[in-house]
């Protein structure tokens, strides 16, 4: 019933010339999404990936367990000194992420293009 979470990583350059690792997520983000979210993030060498963009454009459903996975990712990134940005949230989930305080530890952008332009 829970739709699968898919993720893939792309290495891009921002207009400023910085390397950005983009973690694109698709499907549902729930308690079953640990490997797709944290596993994919952990597969990136931390020292060579200081900028990470989490792209939620193709995510259909996020519940509080899924938000908890994002917080766990932010904890690891904070320890490693990585900067996390998030893009592609629907207006509703942008509001929910803001309600739980995520913008204190990650910058939210409406779209992938706006995020890349700002990095």
């Amino acid at each position, binding site marked *: 019933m829970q739709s699968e979470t898919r993720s893939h990583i792309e290495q891009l350059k921002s207009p400023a010339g910085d390397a950005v690792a983009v973690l694109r997520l698709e499907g549902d983000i729930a308690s079953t999404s640990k490997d797709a979210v944290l596993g994919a993030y952990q597969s990136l060498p931390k020292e060579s990936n200081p900028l990470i963009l989490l792209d939620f454009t193709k995510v259909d*459903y996020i519940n509080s367990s899924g938000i908890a996975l994002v*917080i766990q990712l932010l904890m690891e990134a904070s320890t490693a000194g990585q900067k996390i940005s998030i893009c592609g949230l629907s207006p509703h989930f942008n509001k929910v992420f803001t309600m739980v305080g995520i913008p204190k530890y990650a910058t939210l952008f409406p779209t992938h293009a706006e995020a890349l332009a700002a990095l």
Partner: protein
Amino acid sequence: MSEPKAAIVEVRLPSRLGYEKVAMSTAAAVAHLMGFREERIEDLKTAVAEACINAIEHGNRLNETRSVGVTLSAAAGALEVKVIDAGRGLEHLPPLPDIDRKMHGQQEARGMGIFLIQALVDEAEWVTGVDGDSSYVRLVIRLDKVA
């Protein structure tokens, strides 16, 4: 003239994660029929999903022999949702999520569902049945008055 009776819709879910989406879709369909704005329907969907997840995980402890009952009562101006499980209910509400405490490992990363429910609907209350072997959460979301 007497008030029209509330329209009642009932759904029973297996205690299996993922099936909360059936309750979400049903609640959204009822809210559409009632004329709720999209933004409020999204709020309702998240609140109903979180209530069902709590019922499946904590109330029924993922025991698939127990079902979660969801009753939607559409009355003039408001939609009431009851999510019923076979648990003993909440002894106390969990602490408010604190992102700084979570980031420093002083509060579990999980545990935001009840906060989200309270923040997204107009009323939320947790009720334990008198027999102690069932409980429910009751949510109310009101239709905005047109100015």
